[in-house]
């Protein structure tokens, strides 16, 4: 076999291997977008989201519980609808009308072929400097 042919076969094999790996990579659980760094206030650990944020949860869980809250003060006091999507499909929504913490429960579908599911959240409005909701630590059941 000639060298270019061998190189071509190796390249195709590498691409197939990479695609197989990237379908469900182990690092996906640590990926997030639209979320600011973790902070802590009155014993609650949370991250601020923007208008749209995403993160990943284990697909083996039956339920995911996510604490959310936002501010109601001079920087913005309109009620906020927070909508959650699981792998792109609407899963739950909650209306926030005051600054108390509310827990949103996402019922997870039966586990698929991936180790994780993607959770996207979108807020109907944002507070100053693109602050959406405070997102507490999700817990899986």
């Amino acid at each position: 076999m000639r060298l270019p042919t061998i190189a071509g076969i190796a390249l195709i094999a590498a691409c197939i291997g990479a695609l197989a790996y990237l379908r469900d990579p182990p690092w996906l659980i640590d990926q997030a977008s639209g979320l600011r760094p973790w902070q802590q206030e009155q014993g609650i650990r949370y991250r601020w989201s923007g208008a749209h944020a995403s993160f990943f949860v284990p697909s083996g869980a039956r339920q995911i519980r996510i604490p959310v809250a936002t501010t109601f003060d001079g920087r913005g006091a309109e009620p906020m609808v927070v909508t959650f999507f699981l792998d792109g499909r609407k899963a739950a929504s909650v209306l926030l009308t005051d600054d108390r913490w509310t827990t949103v429960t996402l019922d997870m579908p039966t586990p698929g072929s991936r180790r994780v599911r993607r959770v996207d959240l979108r807020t109907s409005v944002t507070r100053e400097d693109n602050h959406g909701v405070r997102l507490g630590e999700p817990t899986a059941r």
Partner: protein
Amino acid sequence: MRGTILCRGFVAVAALACLTGYVYAYAFGRAGVPIRSDAFSYYVYLPAWLLYHDPSLQSVADDCCGGTFPAWTAITRWPRTHRWIDAHPIGEAILIAPFFALAHLLTKWTNLTPDGFTLYYQHAAGLAGLCYVIVGLWFLRRLLMRYFADAVVVGALATLLLGTSLYHYATFDSVWSHAFSFALCSALLERLDAWEPGAWRSEAAIGVLSGLLILVRHTNVVIPVCLLATAWRPGAFPGSAASRRRLTLTAALVAALVVLPQLWLYRRATTHWLVSSYGTLGFTFGSPHIAGVLIGPQKGLFFYAPVLLLAVAGLAVLPPRLQRWRLAIFTILGVHTYLIASWWDWQFGGSYGHRGFVDVYPFFAAGLASAFARLMPHRRISAAIGTAVGLLCALSLFQMLQYWHGVLPMSDVTWSQYRGVFLRTW
């Protein structure tokens, strides 16, 4: 044969070197994400067009930023229409589009959020800039190989990559527009240099490259105008006046067609075909900072890339067939310098060296090769110059790493600050 392998292998070695720098910059947290600062507004058209099908940019503003782009994006509302106007044009986004498409497919495959800003999109844009620098080097190599020995070509290109801020703009800040302008400028110079009468495809390609150059940075218009004007200098180009007229007209027509979508976007956002997308920010033509942009410690071109002084000397002694470009090159460099020096923020914000000049580095490559070719026969002088060039490349790379590690400030560097951090490690 050995020389040919050296020359052919240079582009691959350069690609590997740039990839190493890119991985270092991003895997070790030296840079944030590739699409940041100015890069955001060059790139934002892609998610707007291809994901949201919304040329107004509002959908991206809603999704990423709560409906309003932050001030640092340089995307502002036009006063009368209240539509978004992006300070940066669409050319870079067009060039990144194939990489974006691949990133989108991979994003879907891995189930990341397909919003245009997650992991794969970020690095597709970052690697696009790197690839375009390599493409630019490939075109330059092709051009220089017509006139110089292989060792000279490799020496000139390696010096350009390592002795200037080109490496930085291929890696750390690869989504800034300069990598893309560099590639287009290299390709345009090479294609025009290779032009033969009657090659209509080549003429159309020259038009496309010219149009894209204008679309990446509008001030780049001076590059195709001056290079194409060379066709009208007596004896500079082969063929009859009719064939040169056809080249000029075809290139101008194709370039106009390429630029048209940008004008349509301006018209849509502002009701005007031609606007200053920077709003009230502009040029101070009466008080240009010529010394600041050329030799000052803040951002001086020759201060941070002194090897380019050799390139300027080399431009004065170009080989006969390349001499036809000399007037155009000096005109471009003169106008470009004046425009940069007259910009209200003549330092161009944070950058390693003066980033405004990266776009015209291809012209310096010809000068470097010419200087090396002249010096090569003189063994002692060439050894001394070679050593000096090697040391200056090492200094440039070291200072670049200082910049990456926050030792060298991003802008407003004073002479005393520079002396204070000179050769300081991190």
